[in-house]
């Protein structure tokens, strides 16, 4: 064996170890959720769906999941509307201070969530917005809208203005041009942005933890509490379901985003 191939094998082995490290937590949850007994064993002594049943028949888990889905769906709609309108203004508009707005848009991605959580709690509590769906959708939309703007404005930038100009020259109104020409062309990017926004809301943990009420709590808050106080395999069952759903959605979003890009080579 030459020294070159030894080096190559060592490199691959090292990489494989890191890849195992990366996949380990995700891969360990699914077998745990199928374990028949109370404690977490690996490998599980047998297979059972009891924790999935426990999840599906526990009113507190189901309520929290439905609440999270509701918040995420409303956040998705709000982010797509506000974000797409904003992207059009940023890319096609004559906007003073455009760069400043673009920089501020990235703030929700940089500012540590704990600071947002505490600040928003202080703002929402006196107004009675904590633990309400309005409160959740407001802050989740603020956190999710940058993803929509980033993806949609990138798609708009790739779109030659000549297409719209042709429409305008042929007598179509601005709105018709947008509806008939621009929107169909940026639709894949908008869809990708919608998925990102939905997941950003559904996954959001820290802010949701602080503004949840006793009645309305998100599933991330419920999970956080259960991890801290009673480590039951129901969490593994719920996590497995969410991970599978998330991966499916992300595959859709990425395929959609790729479809909106010009073909490379």
């Amino acid at each position: 064996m030459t020294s070159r191939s030894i080096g190559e094998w060592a490199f691959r082995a090292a990489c494989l170890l890191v890849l195992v490290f990366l996949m380990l937590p995700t891969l360990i949850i699914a077998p745990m959720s199928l374990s028949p007994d109370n404690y977490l064993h690996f490998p599980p002594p047998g297979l059972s769906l009891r924790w999935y049943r426990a999840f599906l028949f526990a009113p507190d888990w189901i309520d929290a999941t439905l609440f999270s889905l509701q918040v995420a769906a409303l956040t998705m709609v709000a982010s797509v509307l506000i974000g797409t309108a904003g992207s059009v203004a940023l890319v096609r508009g004559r906007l003073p201070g455009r760069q400043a707005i673009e920089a501020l848009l990235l703030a929700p991605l940089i500012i540590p969530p704990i600071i947002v959580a505490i600040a928003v709690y202080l703002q929402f509590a006196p107004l009675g917005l904590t633990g309400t769906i309005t409160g959740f959708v407001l802050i989740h939309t603020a956190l999710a809208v940058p993803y929509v703007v980033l993806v949609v404005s990138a798609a708009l930038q790739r779109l030659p203005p000549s297409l719209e100009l042709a429409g305008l020259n042929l007598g179509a109104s601005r709105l018709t041009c947008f509806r008939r020409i621009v929107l169909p062309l940026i639709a894949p990017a908008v869809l990708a942005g919608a998925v990102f926004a939905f997941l950003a809301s559904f996954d959001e943990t820290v802010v949701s933890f602080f503004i949840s009420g006793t009645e309305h709590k998100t599933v991330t808050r419920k999970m956080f509490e259960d991890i801290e106080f009673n480590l039951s395999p129901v969490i593994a069952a719920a996590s497995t379901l969410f991970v599978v759903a998330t991966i499916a959605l992300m595959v859709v979003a990425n395929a959609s985003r790729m479809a909106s890009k010009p073909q490379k080579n």
Partner: protein
Amino acid sequence: MTTTGRATAFRGQLSLPLTLLLIAPLVALLAWTFFLPIGRLLLTSVTEPTPSLDNYRRLLTEPLHLRVMLRTLLIAFGCTVSALLLGYPVAALMARPGRFWPKLTAICVLVPLWTSALVRSYAWIALIGRRGVINTALIDAGLIAQPLNMLYTSAAVLVGMTHILLPFMVLPIFSALLSLPADLPRAAANLGAGRVRTFLTIVLPLSLPGVFAGCLLVFVMALGFYITPALLGGPRTLMIATLISQQATEALDWPFAGAISTVLLLMSVGLTVAFRRVLRLDRVVAHD
């Protein structure tokens, strides 16, 4: 129509009122739910209980708080170094030509990225907890009599956070390596350089922007990390984010929580703004 108006329309631009109308909801939402509350939180740190810098004096003089800040910096630094060491080879593998390895690597990097930090922290508890997978296996194998204390230590936080932040190191380096012209390493090899020399003189220097972006991103995110230290660190391994939450929810000392937030914000935003050219956040989010 005026000349400028026509010129504007000709470039397909929107008029100013329409532009403002379209952007108004976005700006209003971010201002009211995001910037205003954060501004108010930071302001309370200098106005309450009395208008002074007392909160900051307290933060910088009490040994407990200084220890938390030092621990946060050390853990963030440790995460950055370990993510770089683990992430560079993986990024190199992902950027290689071929089908099998790059695909496998991409899946292994993206699937954890799409799994929530909460779920992953839970998985680490299940792995390293007192009744976790590792302890049970070691006891069953007769290697140890008492379970090892791995959870609620700085090491647990370091491992959990490195795991969560690793994709943010891999993706920028991958992106830098991918944009490296394939001719360059080949030219070096033709001119007689060995693999090590080609890597050290050609590939590594040209991938440094990606390395730098990855390190910065991981370090900044690690500074403000909350979920993992809260779940894997326990009360003995406080970091800045968990200290903020403790001051706000247990001590109910909001102005002091505001002061710590200001320090954390200055560090994370300061670093991001100072190095924004290398960071390219838009790219990381879209992970092309």
